[in-house]
């Protein structure tokens, strides 16, 4: 859409004192904003790249620029070699974390779509007043503080008195003794703790995609659907042959956004499952945080980890922009 304007040629109007005055105003106004972006966005990116090649800890006094050098020596790609092949504990946990992060994302995306797509279609079909009410309520978890969401689900998953245990008992099933802390509970290769985190996250997050899909459905011109009806299509055909093709771009775009955000989920992993049991819910973001700020103060290694996450997300972002740039008119 508008991103594409970046690639268009800028028309520069010339001549006239008035124009010169306006240009001067534009430059003086934007300079502080761009300097600010330089300091808090561009510099941090470059510094993160550089730090990935150093053994860096803020508690050591380095010698060179920003303590790079001296006690914080340049180590080349050693951090990356360690992360990919090393036997140190952080590296081994990180490789597990990469796997878990992908597993989490691979579970969240289909579960999210399976809930939001049909729900959006149904929601779009009911009366205006109901639509607004339901949509508002479905959106409630997304505006909730993630910490509160963790507390809610910690209580839902509580062994014995938790609501989920009670519901299991009510329908005659034996609830697991522990939902979040028994590493031996694994279903189809997926640890129970991971399933619990996925459910809690999708509960918190599904409102976003839902409102996006409802908006996309509403933007499909009525005339197209009516034309299909006139041509003799039934409700089912109208949905699959008219609505679904028109929705494809939105679903694709929303899926990429969902994947990008799933890769970066933090709070629920840090506070609900705490990365456990036995690192079964350890994720990349949790590893970055723990290595940088919690146990190790190893900012070099943590930066190298963040670069790996960055490259994955960059590829996805480029994909997203390419989808956005494709022309789409009804």
């Amino acid at each position, binding site marked *: 859409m508008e991103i594409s304007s970046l690639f268009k040629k800028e028309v520069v109007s010339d001549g006239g004192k008035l124009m010169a005055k306006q240009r001067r105003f534009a430059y003086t106004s934007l300079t502080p904003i761009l300097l600010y972006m330089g300091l808090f966005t561009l510099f*941090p990116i470059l510094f993160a790249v550089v730090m990935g090649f150093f053994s860096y800890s803020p508690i050591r006094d380095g010698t060179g620029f920003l303590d790079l050098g001296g006690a914080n020596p340049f180590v080349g790609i050693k951090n990356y070699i360690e992360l990919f092949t090393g036997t140190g504990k952080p590296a081994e946990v990180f490789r597990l974390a990469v796997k878990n992060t992908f597993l989490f994302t691979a579970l969240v995306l289909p579960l999210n779509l399976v809930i939001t797509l049909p729900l959006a279609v149904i929601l779009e079909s009911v009366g205006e007043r109901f639509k607004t009410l*339901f949509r508002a309520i*479905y959106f409630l978890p997304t505006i909730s503080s*993630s910490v509160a969401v963790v507390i809610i689900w*910690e209580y839902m998953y509580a062994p014995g008195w938790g609501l989920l245990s009670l519901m299991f008992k009510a329908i005659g099933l034996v609830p697991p003794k522990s939902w979040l802390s028994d590493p031996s509970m694994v279903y189809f290769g997926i640890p129970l703790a991971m399933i619990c985190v996925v459910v809690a996250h999708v509960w918190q997050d599904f409102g976003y995609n839902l409102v996006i899909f409802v908006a996309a459905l509403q933007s499909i011109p009525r005339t197209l659907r009516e034309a299909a009806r006139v041509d003799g299509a039934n409700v089912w055909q109208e949905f699959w042959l008219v609505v679904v093709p028109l929705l494809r771009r939105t679903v694709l775009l929303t899926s990429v956004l969902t994947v990008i955000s799933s890769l970066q989920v933090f709070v629920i992993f840090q506070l609900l499952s705490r990365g456990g049991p036995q690192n079964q819910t350890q994720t990349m973001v949790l590893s970055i945080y723990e290595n940088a700020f919690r146990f190790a103060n190893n900012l070099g290694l943590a930066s190298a980890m*963040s670069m790996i996450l960055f490259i994955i997300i960059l590829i996805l972002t480029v994909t997203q922009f390419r989808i956005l740039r494709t022309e789409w008119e009804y």
Partner: protein
Amino acid sequence: MNTEKQRKNPFWLLGKSGAYAVLLLGLVATLLPFFYILVSSLKTNAELRQTPPDFFSKEPSLQNYTTILSDERIPIERNVMNSVIVSLSRVAITLFTSSFAGYIFAKYHFKGKNLAFGVILIQIMIPFQVVMIPNYLLIVRFGLIDSLWALIIPSMVDAYGIFMMKQFIESMPGELMDAARIDGASEFGIYSRIILPQMGPPLASLGIFTFMATWNDYLWPLIVLTTPEKRTIPLLLVWFQTQHTSNQGLILAASILTLLPIFLVYIFLQRWIVDQATQSAFK
């Protein structure tokens, strides 16, 4: 919309009631967890530990809430104030920088405009986890660690905000601006007196969204704040979660207290929030 023939069709009726059944199921799944901790926060500690528990308390009381609000060891007023100060500051600053930069990008022609806009958009593509470590070091160097400034200063410019405001201002006609220029208005005067007054709706959306994001922000405050007096609400809640593991009632009441202000804002401003969420996906 629906014809008489459709209405009499039993399948149509079945489909219609099926639709409402699914919507209701979703409603229960969304609200039940909230409702369960709400009713549980009214229980006594003994009731909370009872297995199997009753869904509703036999003698509901606000004991847990009064305990939290009257506990002098918890600087709860300070923590609420911290969240309010940081959220409102960030809303004010973001609204100004977004609308002002958006105005420049929408209404002025100058060399390097696309490059400058591209530089700002980089912020959208960078995961927070990449810049968080260098930004932490910057904050340490500026001597801002463990102060509320650390929450405000690194997020004064919002690329999303600039993008959205630019879109909106581009659609505004230029005639008023030209007329104001002829009347001798300064370029900044055009922004503050012609453009800004017309920007109520998009500014409201961006403002509410910024407020909620800041109010719920957790990871960055966790990194840069250390003393209890400096904590924002989510950090206080985590402290509760780790401190009162034996007293579930207090944790539940604390989370209800955290959710309440945001829900109240939401009830009144629901439409803006949902609209903003929809737009932000289609930058």
